[in-house]
């Protein structure tokens, strides 16, 4: 699942559950997930390195 599709689904679910105030927290969680997915320690099944990301240095 991509971060964008996860975030859209999560915000919609939180609103459905009467918790719209969670939007900012979910957006922060999405940024955290993106940082982890971009990190240089991730291994790829096809052997390629992860995208270079200077935020992990």
């Amino acid at each position, binding site marked *: 699942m991509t971060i964008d599709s996860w975030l859209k689904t999560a915000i919609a679910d939180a609103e459905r559950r009467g918790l719209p*105030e*969670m939007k900012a927290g979910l957006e922060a*969680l999405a940024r955290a997930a993106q*940082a*982890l997915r971009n*990190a240089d*320690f991730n291994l790829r099944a096809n052997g390629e390195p992860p995208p270079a990301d200077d*935020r992990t*240095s």
Partner: protein
Amino acid sequence: MSPDIMTIETFGRRLRARETTCEQATEECLRRIEADNPRLNAFILVMADEARRQARELDRELASGHDRGPLHGVPISIKDLLDVRGVPTTAASRVRDGHVAARDAPAIAHLRQAGAVFVGKTNLHEFAFGTTNEDSAFGPARNPHDPERSPGGSSGGSGASLAAGMALASIGTDTGGSVRIPAAACGVVGLKPSFGEVSTDGVVPLSQTFDHVGPLALSVGDASLVYHALLGDAPTLPPVPMPLHGVRIAVPRAYFCDVLDDEVRARFDEALDRVRTAGVHVDEINIRHTALIAPVYLQIVLADAAAYHAPTLESMPEQYTPGVRSRLELGRYVLAEDYVRALAGREVLRREIDAALAQHDALMLPALPIPAPLIGATTVQIGRSSEPIRNVMLRLTQPFNITGHPAISIPAGTTASGLPCAVQLVGCGGQTDGLIKVALACEPALRGSRTAS
């Protein structure tokens, strides 16, 4: 901190010289609780009758020649997250209404065996899930240095009780800094031992990946005494300080000094100058992957907490304070694949800290980037930037919950308005006693030669 507050070591000397008794020390703490707790709200439960009974019994034991060691008769407060037999463990939440602990947590049982007197259970941020102690079913605890300000959290009542002389030590828990943050905000010492050393059984969990139990105390020596009692060790004196001229300190400025209040930065630099002048070898170093600290912490702590709270989030959501409920709900959206990446990131960060310590005895950095914040504030201005209070308060302590390295917060001066600032020393993994030896050596220089007596 009031100048007439005694350390455990001073109390022990006076007790064995028959200049005081366990009962007198306990009565003095109970007197301060009665006088100041209405203003500070440090305690959820005061155990006055039980404390008096314990103290009298310990006086009788000592008179008959049974000395339990350094904690004999020492009044101690306990964060209301740890089970003490026969009384509720509220976790500062209505969710736990009606709970009464059937037995002591092992760490508490060790303290009881060591002769500690339990004066009461202290206030905290609900379920230890916050840094300010504002979200508590029992109202916010307040900072003795300025009651309009937070004592830090989540063990805020512990810090306040100690700084106000309501106990000679306190037991807290630390999942992202919850011992070290209130210690820094209240001007006392806070020790987070290495991960896994002190049992967390009988302690309401926040994140079993990051939870630690540790002492808040008035000096490094006292913290050492309480730490060893928590482990259930045979009574022992604090270790001999490391010779100052042999101490090698690493200062990682990038990330760890990037977001600091101006006065906190000034006190840190002054403390660093003092330890260097005292003979400590100081190197400036760089630690890689620091940008991963917050993402790793967030994914793991949120998911761990949500796993524990999911049933009650469904059955009694209205019993949580709104802020804590929101954070707990967030964890239910963490994807397993991101949690696994965070676990991998934790290992990367652990290796980075191990590497930073390979040639050094300790890291030195500020403990809390800001002085104690005003109660009710949600953001803080640092330079030109407005930062969320919670993120800022966790920034310098959470890395060592992720990596499990032992860390200690030591007072290091005050702001112009008298609010405490603090320095953090971080030791090698699994070597809490080694960190204590370094901290004992550096404490006078860090404090600016004023040590607790």
